[in-house]
């Protein structure tokens, strides 16, 4: 049987492995690149396999060159550049697949496996999510197994082939897996101690693929897509308890400019952020932000300072980083739920936040003027607008009817159905029309408490928009008009409010508590992964060294620590590999029980000599320990009967076997107390 397997493995096997590894590497990227690239790559793999099976001919050199150039051209046409992670990955995918077409010698096969490993690295650079890690691990295992197969086969290419018990597929995977397993402690050591860089060696563009996140603009109706996503936006862990639901407003982009239909950020004020007077105890917490490919760092409203030097703290309390968030990151922040502005509003800011496009939404303007003239103050005006929204049959809906040319007018007087974006923009429009400085704030509202890692999980479906108005005396004040229409939105997630708003799977998760709990555990695990593994950077490394007792963290100390650990690891693998056991066949159930029995007896000082069979052993025991004879003797006889007796079969009677195993385990349990001591005493007196 071994011989046939060897024969199968011999000539074609390395090629099969190399093809498989290539296909696996291509599939790792399938979700991230344009479909045609994956399809083209897989087609080339198929071509190579067909050629190996004799169903197709391999292309000549000219064809390969033309093919290669046209695929490069295709990538260039798609990306308009060959520089960057995404186009580079696409190029590498196609190049590895083309290389496969000219793969004949072991050298070519090594190159393809190397390319597959590099594609795996590219996948790691692209996504570090925990869910992908098992796939990455499998791919690494496949690549290493392919190396073993290529190496094994390359020893036989000189015609001096002598096939004897070759490595089968299982052995090859076992070999690669074992090697990787032994390598793992070193990987952890290097991961912890290998010096990291505080910055980048060369700059890179994070790519164009800004997928999710809050937008730069807000057109009522533009947030619908986000609310359907159940993905995690970020999580927060508080030093004390989490804030109550009505204070869980997470501030994102602030919109100042309105053209009648769309809000956008507008020109940020150049000045420093205004001093805040905090009226309540500030919340201290750490945010674990998922990649958004946007520059905003989310924080609880209202954040009091910038968490990092590279992050700008704007005068409307946004946190804007110099680089888009392309990897998950974490930062500490401090926020004040109830704050008062100390500095009066500058004329420029007032001008910007009361500006409206002339001539748009005339009915809204008329309503605002009417309400403002009736109200005694700005606060009264805010109240009367909220009363208007509450009293006139407005409803909360994520699928509102479309709005016409004057969207605010249409919404306030005709459709009267919408979601947070509608209410916030209508409210701000009304405020500005009444002369009160106001702006739209987008971000998230809410968050689900995860008891497994004590964090508040905020999902994309928690995206929200609200308003801020300037009231003399208190400064910028948050007003959430949606809360007037649908107060439940604050206390509950959007799922309770509008179950149809999100995808079926999210609804199922929400409906079944145990599934929800499982998901929360998984979220907690993800949080740990993002925090401890993905987030382990230069700073975290220095902190770790500090914790380990290196008073002044320097690279040299890291090197010492690492060197010591490396020596331990080397000794360990030397010892592991030196053990002479891996190929010994595992004994069957009966054999294992017998081994257990012999080991127990050996512990009582009655070791079996290597030449002794069970019956001879029984005689020895009877002679040396007559007290045990009645018990152990029959056991050994049973073993002899089961193993060598006239009715012995390769698989002995299950019932007898069970009784034998039970007797063996009972023996050990009872003898430990009295037997051991007597043996020890004897050993002392009669050495």
């Amino acid at each position, binding site marked *: 049987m071994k011989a046939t397997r060897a024969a199968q493995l011999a000539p074609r096997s390395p090629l099969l492995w190399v093809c498989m590894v290539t296909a696996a590497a291509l599939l790792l990227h399938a979700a991230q690149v344009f479909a045609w690239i994956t399809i083209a790559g897989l087609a080339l793999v198929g071509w190579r396999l067909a050629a190996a099976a004799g169903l197709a001919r391999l292309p000549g050199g000219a064809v390969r060159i033309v093919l290669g150039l046209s695929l490069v051209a295709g990538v260039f046409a798609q990306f308009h550049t060959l520089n960057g992670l995404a186009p580079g990955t696409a190029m590498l995918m196609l190049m590895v697949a083309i290389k496969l077409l000219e793969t004949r010698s072991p050298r070519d096969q090594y190159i393809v496996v190397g390319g597959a490993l590099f594609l795996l*690295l590219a996948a*790691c*650079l692209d996504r570090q999510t925990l869910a992908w890690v098992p796939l990455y691990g499998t791919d690494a295992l496949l690549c290493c197994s392919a190396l073993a197969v290529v190496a094994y086969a390359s020893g036989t290419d000189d015609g001096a082939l*002598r096939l004897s018990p070759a490595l089968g597929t299982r052995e090859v995977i076992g070999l690669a897996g074992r090697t990787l397993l032994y390598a793992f402690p070193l*990987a952890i050591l290097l991961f912890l101690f290998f010096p990291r860089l505080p910055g980048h060696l060369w700059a890179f563009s994070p790519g164009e693929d800004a997928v999710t996140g809050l937008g730069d603009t807000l057109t009522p109706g533009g947030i619908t897509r986000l609310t359907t996503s159940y993905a995690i936006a970020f999580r927060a862990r508080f030093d004390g308890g989490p804030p109550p639901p009505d204070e869980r407003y997470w501030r994102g982009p602030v919109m100042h400019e309105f053209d009648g239909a769309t809000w956008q950020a507008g020109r940020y004020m150049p000045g420093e952020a205004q001093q805040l007077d905090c009226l309540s105890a500030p919340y201290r917490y750490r945010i674990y932000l998922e990649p958004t490919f946007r520059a905003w760092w989310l924080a609880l409203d209202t954040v009091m300072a910038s968490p990092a030097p590279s992050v700008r703290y704007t005068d409307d309390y946004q946190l804007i980083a110099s680089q888009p968030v392309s990897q998950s990151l974490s930062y500490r922040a401090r926020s004040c739920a109830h704050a008062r502005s100390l500095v009066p509003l500058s004329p420029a800011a007032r001008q910007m936040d009361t500006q409206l496009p002339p001539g748009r939404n005339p009915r809204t303007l008329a309503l605002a003027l009417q309400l403002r003239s009736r109200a005694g103050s700005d606060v009264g005006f805010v109240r009367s607008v909220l009363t208007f929204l509450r009293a006139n049959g407005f409803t909360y809906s994520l699928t509102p009817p479309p709005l016409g040319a004057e969207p605010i007018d249409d919404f306030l007087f005709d459709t009267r159905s919408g979601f947070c974006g509608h209410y916030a923009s209508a409210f701000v429009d009304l405020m500005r029309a009444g002369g009160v400085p106001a702006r739209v704030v987008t971000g998230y509202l809410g968050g689900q408490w995860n008891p497994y890692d004590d964090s508040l999980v905020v999902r994309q479906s928690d995206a929200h928009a609200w308003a801020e108005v300037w009231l003399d005396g208190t400064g910028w004040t948050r007003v959430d008009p949606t809360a007037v229409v649908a107060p439940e939105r604050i206390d509950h997630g959007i799922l309770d409010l509008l179950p149809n708003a999100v995808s079926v799977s999210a609804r199922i998760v929400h409906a079944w508590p145990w599934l929800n709990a499982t998901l929360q555990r998984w979220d907690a695990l993800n949080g740990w992964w993002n925090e401890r593994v993905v987030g382990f950077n230069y700073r975290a490394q220095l902190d770790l060294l500090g914790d380990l007792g290196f008073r002044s963290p320097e690279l040299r100390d890291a090197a010492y620590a690492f060197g010591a650990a490396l020596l331990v690891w080397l000794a360990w693998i030397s010892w592991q590999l030196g053990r002479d056991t891996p190929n010994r066949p595992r004994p069957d159930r009966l054999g294992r029980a017998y081994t257990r029995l012999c080991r127990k007896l050996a512990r009582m000082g009655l070791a079996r000599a290597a030449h002794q069979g069970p019956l001879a052993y029984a005689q020895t025991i009877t002679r040396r320990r007559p007290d045990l004879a009645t018990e152990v003797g029959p056991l050994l006889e049973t073993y002899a009967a089961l193993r060598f007796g006239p009715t012995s079969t390769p698989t002995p009677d299950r019932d007898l076997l069970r009784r034998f195993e039970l007797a063996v385990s009972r023996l050990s349990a009872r003898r430990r107390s009295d037997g051991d001591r007597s043996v020890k005493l004897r050993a002392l007196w009669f050495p």
Partner: protein
Amino acid sequence: MQERAADWARRRQGPDRLPLTLARRRLYILPTRAGIAFGALLLTMLGAGLNYANSLALLLTFLLAGFALVAMHECHRNLLGLALLEAAAAPLFAGSAGALRLTLENPSGRAHYRIRVAVANEAAMVLDLPAGSRGQLALPIRASRRGLQRIDRLRVSSSHPFGLFRAWTWVHAPITVIVYPRPTGSLPLPADRGARSGTYPRGTAGADEWLGLRPFRDGDSPRQVAWKAYAREAPLLVKEYSSSGSPLRLLSLEDARQADTEARLEQLTRWIVDAEAGGDLYGLELPGERIPAHRGPDHRHKCLLALALYGS
């Protein structure tokens, strides 16, 4: 380069004697070209991982670096403890290829794979040795000159399991191979000159002499078959007797009329091979050595050995 390294190793290790167990001290290991390329790949990966400050990429890089280091240990282990039991080669003719039979043993409890053994610059042979097994390799050797050829260096190497490293050792065991002269020369076999020299094999005058047994060939007389042996389940054998009927040839160096001694030796070699194949009785006369006429494999070897060692 290889030569100098091997000479250095010989001075360091001293001469070897079979059987021999490969010990730590004599095993050398270096990365292969694939291994160097793998190292370059790791460096690139490290650069990318550090630059992008990407933890998972770094973890992968470090895992593969550890993988390579463990692979190095495994490669070393794959040779360690292997035993070379014996090496012997059948005599061969100068200018022809022969084989050195090398017996290896794996006394350990784990399999050793892809053991490559080569004689000096000849092609390597590959062998897998399961746990506790023995195996034999026929290593190609080539002889250029007659005489005793010393094989002073065997190279045992392996790049199992991943081809990233190659462990090797040189074995300097004294192995000698007998090289007969090249069987060439176109002169016809000298005629039966037994009468001329008057030297019949001892005690053969007139009477048939028992020569031995040889396998049955078509056309042999049933009377000559060794039926007793056949009854003992031996193969069908034929009893051979020298008879005054078969030609008796006494070959001497003067018979070969070539100018060069070596050419004469080669001619004699040719004749001996032909005479043996033809079933003749033949003897050999060399200056200072005289082998009476006889036939059979042992006799052939005796004659050819005398030619191989002539003058040394």
